[in-house]
């Protein structure tokens, strides 16, 4: 028998300007989730805690075949007080967007404070506070090309100097998109910028390493521990202790956060585990995450970090010769069971004879995880935090991040117009 009680209070406030219309955003939630695990899991959710919830959760644990890993008792208190984010920054950013190429602008700032309390049958007691602030800018041109920025900040306020450069870049990119042509389609070498490299490792490797997918046999990485799955230059971590957007001090099952090495020099070393997948696969838990106290934890990523290589962008272009250089992500998706992934870039450039030439848009990339991992030819020597991201799985969204360099792929399927 095992039980845990999660209590959470979340307060979100924000301000959004959409072409002159001002919207204030404000919501506050109080949630309590009580989980009781015997052979099955019973889970009760309410807005306020009531002692009878545990009894009810016990009554619901009628399932079979569930085991959870026992772990050390945790005592953690990390109270944090946060200064309120000045929301008028929205007006300042809005004023920056005055270029005539812009037909439609949306600027928003959203500040989410979360207070989490955790206790379980092992005697653990913990509480912590975390604040995530997001800046969102969306601009559209007359021709309805769209560019956007979503940037996240952990436990700190956003100031103009943190985003000014990105906002100005956004406008320049929109101009570029307006004259870009559609990407070609077919197999070709590709350079991924750090943001897209982040999406690739998140979608293609991270999801396939999640313990539930391994247990259910829906991951191509099942049975591949200790085997070479990637090019030798690839070393990949999941690290919730780093101050990226995917940070947590304690996972949602009361396990203290720690770094996991997923791939070391091309060899698969570990999976990401919840208490349940850890118990069944003899792994180490610590990646059981839930969207809120109203959701059951699942094995999830936190901050995905690729070890740096020794190349720079120029060397990659020269090595590639002819291909596509893709920039900035729109989003991605993977089906870990057969290893097929897809993600879309905001724009990119055709590369000819090692030189960046004309801009392209509407470019997406897809391929087979295991083949593409072996097709990684070069990795950049400087790494960047991608800055913000949310990942969806089985209806639950959690914050994640990536710290990534540039990456050169020998070959991938570029989807554009045939």
């Amino acid at each position, binding site marked *: 028998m095992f039980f845990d009680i999660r209590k959470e209070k979340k*307060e979100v406030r924000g301000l959004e300007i959409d072409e002159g219309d001002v919207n204030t955003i404000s919501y506050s939630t109080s949630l309590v989730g009580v989980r009781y695990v015997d052979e099955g899991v019973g*889970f009760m959710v309410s807005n306020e805690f009531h002692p009878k919830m545990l009894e009810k959760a016990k009554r619901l644990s009628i399932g079979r075949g569930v085991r959870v890993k026992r772990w050390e008792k945790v005592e953690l208190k990390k109270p944090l007080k946060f200064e309120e984010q000045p929301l008028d920054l929205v007006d300042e950013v809005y004023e920056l967007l005055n270029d005539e190429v812009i037909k439609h602008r949306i600027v928003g700032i959203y500040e989410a404070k979360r207070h989490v309390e955790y206790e379980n049958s092992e005697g653990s007691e913990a509480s912590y506070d975390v604040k995530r602030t997001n800046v969102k800018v969306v601009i559209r041109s007359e021709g*309805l090309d769209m560019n956007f920025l979503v940037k996240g900040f952990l436990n700190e306020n956003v100031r103009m100097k943190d985003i000014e450069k990105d906002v100005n870049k956004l406008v320049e990119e929109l101009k570029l998109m307006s004259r870009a042509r559609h990407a070609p389609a077919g197999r070709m070498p590709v350079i991924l910028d750090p943001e897209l490299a982040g999406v690739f490792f998140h979608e293609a490797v991270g999801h396939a390493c999640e313990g539930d997918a391994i247990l259910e046999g829906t991951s191509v990485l099942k049975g591949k521990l200790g085997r070479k799955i990637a090019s030798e230059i690839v070393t990949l971590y999941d690290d919730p202790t780093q101050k990226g957007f995917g940070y947590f001090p304690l996972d949602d099952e009361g396990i203290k956060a720690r770094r996991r090495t997923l791939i070391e020099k091309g060899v698969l070393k570990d999976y990401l585990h919840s208490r349940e997948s850890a118990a069944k696969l003899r792994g180490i838990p610590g990646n059981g995450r839930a969207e809120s106290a109203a959701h059951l934890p699942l094995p999830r990523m936190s901050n995905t970090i690729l070890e740096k290589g020794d190349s720079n962008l120029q060397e990659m272009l020269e090595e590639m010769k002819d291909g596509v250089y893709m920039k900035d992500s729109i989003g991605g998706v993977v089906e870990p069971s057969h290893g097929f992934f897809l993600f879309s870039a905001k724009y990119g450039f055709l590369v000819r004879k090692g030189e960046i030439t004309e801009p392209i848009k509407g*470019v997406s990339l897809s391929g087979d995880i295991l083949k593409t991992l072996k097709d990684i030819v070069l990795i950049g020597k400087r790494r960047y935090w991608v800055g913000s991201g949310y990942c969806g799985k089985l209806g639950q969204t959690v914050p994640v991040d990536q710290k990534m360099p540039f990456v050169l792929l020998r070959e991938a399927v570029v989807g554009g117009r045939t």
Partner: protein
Amino acid sequence: MTFIFRKGKLREVEEKALKTVGIRLTKEGKSVFCSGTDEERCLKRTKRMLKYAKRTEFFGLPKPSKYEKVKLFDKRILGLTEKELLDLAESLITPWNTYASFSREIGEVEFENSNGVKGRYKVASLSGEVEVKHRNAISYESHITRKFEDFSWVGKKAYELCKLSLGKRRIRKGVYPVTLSPTASADLLSIISSHFHADLVQKGVSKAVGWEFSKNLTIYDDGLLPFGLNTAPFDGEGVPCKRTLLIKRGKVKGFLYDFTTARKERKESTGNFLHLRKRPNVSERNLIVKPRRKLEREGIYVKHLVGVHTANESNGDFSLNTENAFLIKGGKWIPLKNVMISGNVFELLKEVEVGDDLRQEDKIASPSLFFPRMNVIS
């Protein structure tokens, strides 16, 4: 109440009892929205946000109106016992099942404003989803309904589809005739549905304005559709829901309005205001593509689109993966490997055939759609 199965075995049972309250406060031409689980805290926060609101042209709030009696609540769903729910959930399980979930949701919606508008209605729904996997083939099926229905077909259909998807082959890239299943069609349409929202139109960024769609296409939004998934007597600001024609035989005929966007054009709201959690929005309720005729299935058939959120909602460009794609040749279904389709939703809807197999699993209800020419990459 939710039952979750993994590898065909019941693992988790969840019960949630949650409440959300949404408040709009208007004062001296300023309007703020707030929502939360606690009414008092919510009201306090709403007042605090007033300082950030800007004075805008204020059109007031809706006045009382008569609501139509709509069919949206099936008592049989409410009356199901735990045992009966579990039986329904177990009927989803077939061989090769990797994941299944089954839920019953019961809720009540109440509304009032300072003009004396008042209303309430009850909702109840059942939903089930399954994932079936064998060797390299995977398939999904899901169903959600506000009427008590049998669910055993959901698992069986996914199982049959998975069997049919074994032994996948590659196909050459090129331009093919493509049929999208009702759910894939609804997903494709969701990329551009916001172009029928009045706020986008008023900001000059709706591509639907003046666009000529195929003559085969008639689309309307029906907030009163009997047992529709988003059917209600009134919307989030107490305005009666109704039926609004958006496209008639290819010609754009209307857009969706809330109270404020409608008043800006001296029109009536179409009852399409939604206020849930974050910011309020104009939103479709049950967007319906009018069915036409049985389609001859030749060329490529796609059951599911994957990664719809990666499409460009602003101009309709997309490049998407598919799951369970087939080449149909002389009545034979040949499963295909790694099929990706691309194009622009607006351009594609200039030439489309509309099927007769209407289905609703979300805000959009569509039959199968046939596109004579679509880019296919493998």
